[in-house]
């Protein structure tokens, strides 16, 4: 009974995220990617750490599942770097949500990151952060072109 009172919403979220990542292994194993229990725990902790570092909070499911789903078929992710890349992507994702002042949706940002991670960034999250994502956020902050229309950053050279 006493243990129940120790379950804050945060702890419940962590438990749910662990269950979610375990289930995702069934999908990602097809791409040679599998997270051990230890790595699952690390990634879940990393998610909350990244949120705290960027001054953000998630009340629901969060982006972990979507992030794994989006990136699991990347040619630049393998069993050796899977955990590390997820760490870096989590950091990037929340950082650039802030940098773009939340003007870009989760889906748009994640798809943008995947496209450039697999493309011109050739699997380097550092390069992705320093080039494509920086440019994306500059556009997002600039908002409008001179003629007053909104920038469609999908069409712009970034």
């Amino acid at each position: 009974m006493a243990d129940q009172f120790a379950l804050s919403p945060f702890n419940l979220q962590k438990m749910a995220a662990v269950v979610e990542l375990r289930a995702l292994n069934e999908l990602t194993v097809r791409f040679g990617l599998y997270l051990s229990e230890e790595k699952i725990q690390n990634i879940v902790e990393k998610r909350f750490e990244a949120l705290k570092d960027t001054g953000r909070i998630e009340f629901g499911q969060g982006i972990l599942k979507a992030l794994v789903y989006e990136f699991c078929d990347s040619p630049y992710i393998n069993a050796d770097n899977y955990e590390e890349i997820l760490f870096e992507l989590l950091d990037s994702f929340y950082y650039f949500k802030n940098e773009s002042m939340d003007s870009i949706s989760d889906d748009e940002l994640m798809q943008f990151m995947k496209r450039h991670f697999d493309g011109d960034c050739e699997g380097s999250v550092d390069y992705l952060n320093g080039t494509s994502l920086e440019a994306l956020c500059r556009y997002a902050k600039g908002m409008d072109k001179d003629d007053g229309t909104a920038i469609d950053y999908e069409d712009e050279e970034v």
Partner: protein
Amino acid sequence: MGENLNITGGAGGLFGFAPQDFGWTEMDYYRLQSQLWQLMEKQTRRYTSGDSSSIPVEIAEEIKQGIYFCIGSYFNANGTAAENADALRTEPLSDLFRKGQQVVWRQVEVGKSRFGRALETAISIKNISYMDTLRALPDFFKQYDVFVMAHDIPVMIDYQLAVAVPETCRGIDYINEYLRRLVIENVFCGYFDAAVVERLLRAEYADFQLDLINLFEPVFRNALGLHLLGKPVNALNITEDDQKNLLALFHTREKSQIRQICGEAFLSLCESMHFNEKDAADYLNAVAMGIAGRIAAFKETGLRQIFLSF
């Protein structure tokens, strides 16, 4: 926001009562915390239109305040502290929130009605901040977000009342109280000729049209002074003889006596003017007490800055 949503807000609580005073158990707090978390998730989804799973902590705090405001509004309108503490324990938080939003919506209608009255009774003196505020207030009703940010005031209110609405008032409560006081001020000023009021304001302010001032208070002040002397108030002007007589009236009085004199005077002034604005007494008493304080402070050196000659 930390790892625990601080929902009970310490002594006094955020809902007008302290749950710990009503026998809440640890399980009650845990249940409430879980429900608040779920409501925060729903409100966050609403705020971001489902586009973001995460939000900055500052925004989360604002969303939380919006929830508290609505539930607090419901509790203020219903039940005793004990009944509300019990409702918080037993009723789903989402239901209390929804009921609170309905209370807030009703208050919005009250606000619209008061704004209509403010426009009807508007002072005809041209003052930029006064006019800008009347122009800005319709935007409040367009932009006010009852669904997520009911505690917020999404417009700038420049015009200063004689006695400001407390900053503890939020959302529509602030606007409604602001408008209530504004109407009282408007109606009082409406008893006097606009040209006379303008001459009075010129005596008080360097540029009454541009300055961030209150138009009503000098009018009330001079009317109070003339009434204390038993003179007609319409002309609003305090003559040299009037200045001497007022000084003589207050010079030897203690602060408490000055407050009593002013307190009684504003009541009889309103009666003599047939000033019948509903629920105005408390507000006008507050204004009168402010004037009494200034009289007490300046009675040794002279009252010319309080009662104006023009």
